[in-house]
Structures are given as structure tokens and as C-alpha cells.
């Protein structure tokens, strides 16, 4: 397998779209209730954790782009093959593919749970997962351009939600934020660690990089996308801390959705129902992109070219989703996943960069 990967010209994308891709894949299921998890660790300084996590993400993305630039238009599957050799490379690629499917599963499970608790108590899990999966399959078999279109519209069409932030303002109590820095550094860092599940998604850059037309602009738009997400998270975190009292927040599983509960419009009294249902549009690009990158991985690693693969993956996920159906199971699944995701998305890029550098040095030395 060659490191370089040159997609067909009709599949290449304008680089500015990277902003939408990264933003839409980062914002998804975690944003519905990340506040509480971080608040448990860092208390009223949770917003500092969010800022730190954001800064760290910028750092990781910088390293990721550096790694990719070593080889020209490469993706993670090619780099693995190059760095680890044929067999170990295949093994590591398989892990990455499984990771992508795993994220897919987590997003799907959590969204279905939210739907069932908030709006449709009686609709069975299989119906939700089957209908969402069909939608995702439609996107993924349609190719990267369809998926990217979904990303673009997902961001554009959900901007109105930001406009509703003004409603909770009459209940705000700014003294909740004081005193600043009361938690110690360890708890704040622990909070940062807990941000993992919410902030991941930017690793898509590893797979989508060869598809982008102007490689020079990648850095700019990747960082812009992440900065957009960070600002959104910070805003939500601050709003949540001043809106809920500490004890209340610890009892609220989906704080962002609960914020919608005080919005009362003349024509819709209960906006949270709209928000929860609308969330499908926000998680759809997430699901599509992860399934696509898993599919892309199999295509690159094992030279399989078939849309049947997409159906196969979907079937596995569908069957899996039937078994994880209670809050406790989902929580265990999330926690287990978060620890893996942390090492894979936040720590591994540094390792990969160092390995790739060494490998590159060695080959140039050999050639001499």
C-alpha cells in the first residue's frame, strides 16, 4: 500500500469545508450533558477545564497536521502501513477502524436514550436505530460529497439554537462562578480529561486530509473549526454554571437540553421537544463521518471495494444497539469508551508523529 493517497478528482473538496466538517463532528451527543460530568470534578471552575481541553485540542491538531504533512497527501491508514510495516500496520489499522465503529455506536446509543427519555417513551430501540442507520447508509454510500453536504447543512441549520440562549438570562446568578480557582489543579485537569467524549471528533482530519484541495489552508480551517467548537462549549458551560445551582446541576443529566426547558415561545410552549428531535440533524454528520472513515479504512487496508461493507457494519451496530439499552449499561459503555478515546485521540498523535519522524529520517539515511 502506498502512503500517498490521491482520491478521484470529483471527490476532492474545497478546504474551507473543513471548518464545517470539524465543527459538526465535534458537536454531537456529548454537548447535551457534558456540563455535569465536568462539574463533578472541577465545581464552579469547570469552565477552566473546558478552556484547557480546548487549548490541548489545538495542540493535538497541530501535531496531526505536522504528521500528515510529512508524506504529502496521506491518511492515517497509509502512515500506519509505512511506519509499522505491512502486518503490524494492518493490525493497527484494524484497531482504528474498530475505534471508529465504536464511536459510532456510542453516539447512536446515547441519542436513542435521549429520544426515549425525553420524547418517545414507548418507541422501541430497534426502530430508532434501524431508521437512523438507514439514513446514515444512504449518506455513506452516496460518497464523501454527500456527507460533507450533510455537515454543512447540519451546522447552518442549527445556528438558530444559539439565538435561544437569551431566554434563560432572567434566571442567572453570577455569584455561582465565584470564587474563581477554588478547585485545585488536579480536579481541574480531571475535568479536562472528562471532556474527552465531548470534544473528540477532530481525528477525522487523519482520514479526510487527502481529499482537501488546497493543503496550505488546512491548518487555518482546522483550527478555526476547533476554535468555534471551543467557544460554543465555553459559552454553554458558563451559562450552565450560572443558571443551575450546584446541587441542581449534579442531578441534571442533560443540562443543555434542560436549558431549553425555560424557553417558551408563543407558538411552541415546550421548545425542548423540538430541540431533542432536531438533534438528529446534529448527530447525523457525526455518524456518517465515522462510518465513512471506517469504510475508508477497510478500503485502504484490505483493498476491499464494496458498499456491502457499509451494510455489514450497520448490521453489526444494529445488533449491538439492541443489547445496550439501560442507563447503567450505557454509562458503563461510555466510561470504558472515554478512557480508550482519550489515549487514542489525545496521546497517540504525539507518538505517531515521533515514530513517523524517525521512520522518515531512517529512509532518507538509507537512500543516501
Amino acid at each position: 500500500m502506498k502512503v500517498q493517497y490521491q482520491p478521484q478528482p470529483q471527490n476532492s473538496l474545497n478546504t474551507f469545508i473543513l471548518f464545517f466538517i470539524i465543527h459538526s463532528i465535534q458537536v454531537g451527543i456529548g454537548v447535551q450533558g457534558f456540563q455535569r460530568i465536568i462539574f463533578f470534578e472541577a465545581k464552579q471552575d469547570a469552565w477552566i477545564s473546558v478552556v484547557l481541553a480546548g487549548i490541548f485540542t489545538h495542540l493535538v491538531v497541530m501535531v496531526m497536521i505536522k504528521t500528515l504533512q510529512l508524506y504529502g497527501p496521506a491518511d492515517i491508514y497509509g502512515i500506519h502501513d509505512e511506519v509499522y510495516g505491512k502486518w503490524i500496520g494492518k493490525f493497527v489499522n484494524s484497531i482504528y477502524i474498530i475505534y471508529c465503529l465504536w464511536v459510532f455506536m456510542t453516539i447512536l446509543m446515547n441519542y436513542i436514550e435521549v429520544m426515549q427519555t425525553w420524547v418517545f417513551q414507548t418507541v422501541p430501540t430497534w426502530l430508532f436505530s434501524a431508521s437512523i442507520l438507514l439514513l446514515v447508509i444512504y449518506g455513506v454510500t452516496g460518497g464523501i460529497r454527500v456527507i460533507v453536504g450533510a455537515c454543512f447543512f447540519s451546522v447552518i441549520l442549527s445556528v438558530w439554537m444559539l439565538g435561544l440562549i437569551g431566554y434563560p438570562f432572567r434566571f442567572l446568578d453570577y455569584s455561582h462562578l465565584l470564587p474563581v480557582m477554588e478547585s485545585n489543579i488536579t480536579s481541574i485537569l480531571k475535568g479536562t480529561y472528562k471532556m474527552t467524549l465531548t470534544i473528540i471528533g477532530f481525528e477525522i482530519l487523519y482520514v479526510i486530509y487527502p481529499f482537501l484541495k488546497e493543503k496550505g489552508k488546512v491548518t487555518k480551517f482546522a483550527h478555526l473549526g476547533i476554535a468555534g467548537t471551543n467557544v460554543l462549549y465555553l459559552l454553554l458551560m458558563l451559562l450552565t454554571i450560572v443558571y443551575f445551582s450546584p446541587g441542581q446541576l449534579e442531578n441534571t443529566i442533560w443540562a443543555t437540553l434542560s436549558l431549553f426547558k425555560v424557553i417558551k415561545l408563543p407558538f411552541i410552549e415546550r421548545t425542548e421537544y423540538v430541540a431533542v428531535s432536531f438533534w438528529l440533524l446534529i448527530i447525523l454528520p457525526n455518524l456518517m463521518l465515522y462510518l465513512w472513515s471506517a469504510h475508508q479504512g477497510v478500503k485502504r487496508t484490505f483493498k476491499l471495494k464494496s458498499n456491502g461493507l457499509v451494510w455489514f457494519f450497520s448490521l453489526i451496530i444494529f445488533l449491538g444497539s439492541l443489547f445496550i439499552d439501560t442507563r447503567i449499561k450505557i454509562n458503563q459503555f461510555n466510561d470504558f469508551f472515554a478512557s480508550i478515546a482519550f489515549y487514542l485521540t489525545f496521546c497517540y498523535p504525539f507518538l505517531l508523529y515521533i515514530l513517523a519522524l524517525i521512520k522518515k529520517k531512517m529512509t532518507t539515511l538509507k537512500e543516501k
Partner: protein
Amino acid sequence: MRKKGWLWCGFLSFLLLCGCAEPKVIEEIGLITASGYDPGKNGTILGTLVELKIDPVATNDVVILETESSTIRGIRNAANKKTSKGLASGQLRVILYGEGMFNKGNTGIAESLSTDPVISDLTYLAMADGKARDILQLKAKQIPDIGIHLYNLINQNTKVKIMPSATLQEVLHNHFTVGKDPVLPILKKEGNKEIAFSGVAIFKGSNLVGKISTEQSFYLTLLTDKFKSGSIDIEINSDSSKLEPINRRLNKIVASLDSIGSSSDIKLINKEKVEFDLNVNLTARLLEITSQISLGNPENIKLIEKEINKSMKKEIEKLIAYFQSKESDVVGLGEVYKSSVRHSKLTDEKWYKMLKEAKVNVNLDFTIRRTGLIE
């Protein structure tokens, strides 16, 4: 292309299937608009639900259902047995507690209601003077729907800040905060035809510890909220010879103020011996005063300002002393303490002890903006 066609068929069929998710037709459900909770027999809860039926044929749309159960949800389920339409609580607007509910400590009603995503966070909570069922059972010609009547009554009074705002969100917010306690407005049945706002219930944690009158409620709002427009009659006790009662009918001087604007600010000035500075700024229009004093004279205005300032300050100090004696922190002094002292590790118990010894200096700044059309 053929493949895509198949996909669309499958997708559409699922869309249709999703459309079958438990429809709720408005004619087929009974909307609960208000609910009341009283202590029942053997520790159960006696629930009174006001059900609104959308039925074009019926002459009376409102049905009152009464059931007893151990849990809040159980009340609804039990009430469902008595009604021809399935009950839905998505339109619940007012939750009324009987006074008896608070005699045995934590009721947990608000908490358990908030776990149900169907209940809105903007639902109003209130306490009944006596039993909640007596208020909800009230039958009067001018009140066709008691649920909506209560909602409008509370909503209207809360908006002009005559009543303290007590939505589910605010009560739970204060309940879960260390250093702030919730309040509930008290509704009282007057005669056989009327319901009126009659005072404010003061809590310590979730225990009812005291009540203040509607007049005192004005001062509470002054401390915890901002007035944009409000009005009050205030009694002036003055020795000044200029301020003499207008006639013999009323042997005291009362000033009527409106267009009240206010802002307040609480500061912790001593961390060891807990001491607060409570600064209140108040401006108002003087509309009426039961004295023959000439309002054209600036000196007289100054005098009235001074006298009103004095009596208001006295009222506020009295109110705070009352809260301290009841160990209830509805003003939120504890929150100020917590946010100004680092690593205070404040707990409820610790704070209630400190609150009793805390010193509060009230500084009131009252200005008369204008005096209406005449001088």
C-alpha cells in the same frame, strides 16, 4: 440507481413507522392544568387534579379529581381510573401544596416532578393557606376553570412583582443551593368565592419555618430582585410638626408610592465576624400623602424622603431579624459569603449557625423622583 430506489423505499417505510409512535390527540386526552397535594391518611399524599377536557359537547369542561397514593405518579395513575380521557400533565401550570405537607419535613414533590421531562420548568409553585384541595375545589361563577384562573392570578402578580417568583426552576435552584432558601407565595381562600395572595412562606431547607405578610413581601423582593415598576403604601411615623394627618378619619400618615425602581447589592465586609453591608437604592414617584404638607417646597420633599427612608429601613431590619431568628436565608446571604470566601467549604448546617450571629447593616437610599401632576 436501482439500489438507491430500494434504499428510499426502505427509508420511507421506516419514516411511516416512526409516525406511529403513540399519537396524542387533543380531544382524547384530559389536560391537567393544576394539581394540589395534601397529606392523606397513613402517610399517603392526597392529590387533587384539575382536569381540562377539550369536548365541544360538554357544558362543563373542568373536572376535579381526587385520589390518594404514596407517590406523585401514583396519584395520576389512580386518577386515570376515574376519568374518561387519558390524563396528560404536559400543560401543568400550577402546583399547590397544602400547608400540612410541610409539617413532616422534605416533601420531595418538586424534585420528583422535575425528573419527568413532561413537566415544564416554568410551572408555578404555591402554598395553600390550609388545604390545597379546598382551593382547587372552589366553585364560583366567575371562575370557570380554577387551573387557568390560578395560573393567571400567579402569573399576573409575579410579573409586576407583587408576588415573589416561584417557578419550579427557581424553587429547585434555591433548594439545592447552600446559602439560599426558597420561598413560596401563599394563596388563601377568602369567603366562598375568592382566592387571594395572602403572604409568603419562608423555608429553611425544605422545612416551612415562617410566614411573612404581603407588605413584607415587598421588602423581600427589594432585597432579592429589582423593581422596574411597583407600588406600595407606606406608613410614616414622624414627630415632625409639618407632617400632620390630613383629617381625623385616619390618624396616621400614609404615603402612596408608585413607579418604584430599585437595585440592591449585598457585600461581605467582615469574613471572621460575619458582617454584611446591604445597600438598597430606591426611587419612586410620590402620588398621594395623607398630610397637608406642601409638596412644592423642596425642603418638605427632603423631609418626606428622610421619614420614608427611616420607616423602610426599620421594616427591612425587622424582616432580616425575623429571617435570622427562623434560621432561614431567603435573601441569599450565604451565597454571597460562599462566593467571597475562598475554601469556605460551606455546608447548610454551618451556615445556619453563622447566619444567626451575622450582622447586617442596612443602607437605604430613597429618592422621590417626582410628585405626579400637582405640587
